[in-house]
């Protein structure tokens, strides 16, 4: 699969909540190749601090040459990206890594926590487009507060997914962890796709393993290159060998990962 370094022009930047925003970038070459679960490495700012690119899942690709990112402001790189205005540019590398593999003949559960929701919208939209028959998509979204996930929840509903919400503060959906509604529904699911904080992914993976339902997780790791060159992005594999998140992942079968160490 070809990869590109593309100077991408910001089309819109939409603030969803205090710390979440959505960047839409004109990035035709990357967008044309992108698969759900893949990511880009984005250059932040134009100086040598911050130095490294930041990895972001591809959030949406509507076929119009644009690429959408859903970003949470956590540090200096994401802060600089939040300051980008339409017409300004951002240098992207992508599409990188291996994405989700969805079997259209099975009932799917998608579990997203916080900004881990990002790649799931792309997965649903692409599945709808490719397999109109595959309506069986259940989406479970968790967030700290309602503001973070309200609009995203609506968007999933608009494209036909059934949505369960949970927030830490109970301001939207049920109060508590998203793994609760997920666990209740797990009996009806035949394949599960997860992206979110490590603890949430570990819990979801364990539930799936117990229920013998295949589960794919999208991992995070500190990355320098995103290209398989620096060997920086390792995680512990269940077999004792390391996996490189940027090359073997970011999406990996849950059973390949050593969840507890």
């Amino acid at each position: 699969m070809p990869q590109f370094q593309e100077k991408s022009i910001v089309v819109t930047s939409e603030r969803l909540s205090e710390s979440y925003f959505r960047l839409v970038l004109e990035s035709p070459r990357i967008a044309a190749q992108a698969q759900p679960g893949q990511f880009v490495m984005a250059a932040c700012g134009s100086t040598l601090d911050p130095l490294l690119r930041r990895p972001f899942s591809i959030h949406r690709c509507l076929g119009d040459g644009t690429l959408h990112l859903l970003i949470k402001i956590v540090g200096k790189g994401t802060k600089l990206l939040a300051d980008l205005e339409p017409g300004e540019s951002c240098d992207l590398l992508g599409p990188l890594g291996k994405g989700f593999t969805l079997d259209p003949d099975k009932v799917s559960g998608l579990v997203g926590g916080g900004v881990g929701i990002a790649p799931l919208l792309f997965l649903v939209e692409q599945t709808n487009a490719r397999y109109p028959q595959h309506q069986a998509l259940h989406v479970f979204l968790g967030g700290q507060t309602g503001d973070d996930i309200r609009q995203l929840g609506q968007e999933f509903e608009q494209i036909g997914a059934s949505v369960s919400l949970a927030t830490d503060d109970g301001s939207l959906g049920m109060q508590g962890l998203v793994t609760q509604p997920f666990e209740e529904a797990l009996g009806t699911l035949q394949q599960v796709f997860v992206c979110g904080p490590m603890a949430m992914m570990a819990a979801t993976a364990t539930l799936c393993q117990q229920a013998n339902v295949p589960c794919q997780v999208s991992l995070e790791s500190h990355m320098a290159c995103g290209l398989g060159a620096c060997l920086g992005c390792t995680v512990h594999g269940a077999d004792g060998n390391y996996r490189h998140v940027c090359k073997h992942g970011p999406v990996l079968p849950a059973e390949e990962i050593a969840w507890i160490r």
Partner: protein
Amino acid sequence: MDSLKVAPDLRVSIGDLSFANPVMTASGTFGYAKEFNDFVQLDRLGAVAVKGISLEPRAGNPPPRVVETPAGMLNAIGLENVGVARFISDKMPFLRGCKCRVIVNILGDSIEEYARLSEKLTGVAGIDGLEVNISCPNVKKGGVAFGTVPEMAQAVTKSVKGATDLPVIVKLSPNVSDIVAMAQAVADGGADALSLINTLIGMAIDTKTRTPKLANIIGGLSGPAVKPVALRMVWQVASNVSIPVIGIGGIGTAEDAVEFLIAGATAIQVGTANFYNPGATEAIIDGISDYLVEQGQASVRDIIGSLKVGN
């Protein structure tokens, strides 16, 4: 002088080995080259120095392995590599197909290991030279790095030279009191060239958890932050030791590269910049060419070591 009509001559050589231009990639920052095939015309590079290879495969350190620092990064990859056998069988076929020179970076735990590794790589088609990473702990000498004791560095050099007829480049560690003494010891050991610098040893701490940010506690600092130290060492070594020097450390632009050439480097390697700008090497080749045109110089060789000091 008027701007030249013909493209400047970028060729350089180290001993009998010629390079199309002085721009190489630094070991460990360019994988086995294939990873960058979509971003760089590999055929245009002066050389690729591949990730450090050991006799046996190594798994490397536990994560986290990388952390960003101001204008730099720390890494503690722990020399993860596929081992010499799989390197030759899996990685060399692609590299052999590239027009650029291929330099194999090697590492070991003992002087004998360096020698055996060199033997195994000698005669393999497509390998143009060896780069000896001496920033590794000598397990027989209590883990003191080969690269911090002149006698040990010289011994490694001699043993590699005795085991191969390939050009031998010894890569120096900057974590020393006297870089010229290290360089001289290695030159006296028969090295064909020196490359410097490897990473500075550094550390970062997560204040929330009060743990090191790297699982290995300490790691190697690289990137633009270290450029001034690298340039100083390259200048000191190039001015005092007679074998060619390859300059490394924080090079990200043609201007950076030219600084090293002026300081006396015959060639340069681009490391961390490949991560934040995968097209860096090609931009540097073009930029050196532009610089020579601006300065009215016909050949890159005319600017090597051209620093004017004193008045």
